[in-house]
């Protein structure tokens, strides 16, 4: 194991229902793993725990030697793309990039450089001056992914990243994710569309009744 993602006996109960029951798995660095499952299976809950948005009831999670409980360090390692687009739809795409870079504490000169380089990014170059509210579902998804990639996170958590995306958007996003894997980034993708996961991922885990199935 090359100090990748390590999850052991993870449990979580929400509103009286045990959503995750002693989940355990390991993911090496530089891989893409998929998590499939029906709606309500607990995929988002699992990713939110890994994103440190929710606190688990029990279990142990670490990545690259950093424990999940070490919140500040953990958050410096991860990138999280939530299920919703979760961007202010009044802002243009380039303003969105500048805003989230500023929220990360990036100085103004660097923010300008980020926006400049984004003009050449195939994921968003076509619509960088469009307000988010005028973007199609696929465009908004691509913008959301780019925001999630800020800071070049070592562990990338994606919750239904292809939802509402057209074929071209899906292809562009998958190419970007594969490129990141080649750069030794670790990626975990949750989706209920197993065919997309099968194409993209090195391994797919099926979440059902609080457990992972099909674990190799």
């Amino acid at each position, binding site marked *: 194991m090359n100090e990748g993602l390590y999850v052991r006996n993870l449990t979580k109960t929400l509103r009286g229902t045990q959503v995750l029951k002693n989940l355990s798995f390991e993911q090496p660095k530089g891989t893409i793993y998929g998590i499939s499952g029906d709606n309500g299976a607990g995929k988002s809950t699992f990713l939110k725990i890994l994103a440190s948005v929710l606190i688990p009831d029990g279990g142990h999670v670490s990545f690259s030697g950093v424990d999940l409980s070490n919140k*500040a360090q953990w958050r410096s*390692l991860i990138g999280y793309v939530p299920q919703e687009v979760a961007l202010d739809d009044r802002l243009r795409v380039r303003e969105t990039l500048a805003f989230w870079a500023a*929220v990360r*504490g990036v*100085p103004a000169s660097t923010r300008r450089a980020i926006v400049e380089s984004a003009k050449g990014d195939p994921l968003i170059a076509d619509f960088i001056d469009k307000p988010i509210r005028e973007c199609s579902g696929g465009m908004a998804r691509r913008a959301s992914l780019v925001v999630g990639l800020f800071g070049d996170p070592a562990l990338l958590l994606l919750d239904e990243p292809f939802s509402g995306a057209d074929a071209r958007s899906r292809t562009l996003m998958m190419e970007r994710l594969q490129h990141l894997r080649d750069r030794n980034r670790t990626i975990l993708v949750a989706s209920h569309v197993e065919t997309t996961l099968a194409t993209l991922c090195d391994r797919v885990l099926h979440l059902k009744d609080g457990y992972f199935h099909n674990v190799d």
Partner: protein
Amino acid sequence: MERTSKNRDGVITVPASFSERMRSFLAIFRHDLRVARTGLLVVILLFSVLVALIVPLFNRDDKLDLLRTQLNFSVSIVDEEDSFFGKLFVEVVKDVQYLDKVHFDTFEKAKERLDRDETILFITLPPDLFQQTRTGSVKEPVQLYLNPRKSMEAANIATLIRQYYFAVNRVYGTVFGYQKEHEKMGGDEDESWRQTTKHALSSMAAYFAKNRFVETGRSPGKSAIFHAISGILILLAFIPAMGVLFQTSRLRGTDLEDRMTLIAGRVAPAVSRLMTGLIWWIVLVIPILVALRVVGILQTLLPIALVLLGVYLAGACFMLFVGRANAPTVTVYQVGWLIFFALLLFGGVFYPVSLFPVWLRISAHFTPMYAPMQAVFTALTENGSVPRNGILLSFWAVPPALALAFIRIKRKHSCG
């Protein structure tokens, strides 16, 4: 591994140093301001026009005097016999604070004044009143003629006058022995009765001056206009707190909040909302304070501004707490507005708390808006000055509200 804000390529991932945190906070604050920009500009424009229209109206001495005038009233006394009692009566009642002016008129003149609304009532003293009071046998009573166009005010003053006469009887009884002693010493019965009557009226007038017959807060002793302005100021200082509630509740539990929390934590967005509310507070409150300064009602703005700041901070912190309640957004809004109006009602903003039943009146004194309302009212009537304890009392609700907000923000059902 040491805590760092940059990954191995030197790219900032989450703000960690002070300057990074400040940049992060300012970005959120600027964004919140940008969202509120249109509303702020509209309100600034609207208030500018309103202030420009209203200030010249009140910026005249007579109008200002009207505002400053307490709710005092004029009465006429008709004493055709020009009796000792009538003169004495006028002499002692002219210092009573509720009576602005006492006219000594004929019946026709008094009626004329009443018709012109110069007085709210007139009193006719029977020719043998002095004799009646000495013997205690009333043949012809004192008559009160009330102004039908000011029936409420006239009824209040009539009640006072009736209390006055009741008091005369009581005091007369207590000083009867004094009259006997005076008669023994001087031998002049008429003079002894005069002295006794004068003493009785003076004693009773002294009690009037001390408000002994009117419960504090139940008399129209101050300008109702100032009460209305105080209420408006408290309302405007509190309204930005409702904006804090909307923003907090709208974002609670959303993916956008999760995304923000992971990068900036929970405190920076909450502080940004408080600061945005503060900008709203400045836009809503300061122009009115400046207008009151321009027309001369306030000589200084700082004390009243501090009091109103306390109103906003207490309200905003409490709404941060309410806004994070684990309930549907609509329910949170409804509860927030209910709390808003309840606090204003029990603070005496809509009605003076003196109108409440005693138990409710006492309870209202411990609600967060009561002390600020009293302080703002004092400031308006005292050229802007507020006692230091008045300012401090206006802030009493801020620490507990802040503690509630902080506990809720940092609550451990989710990472913060």
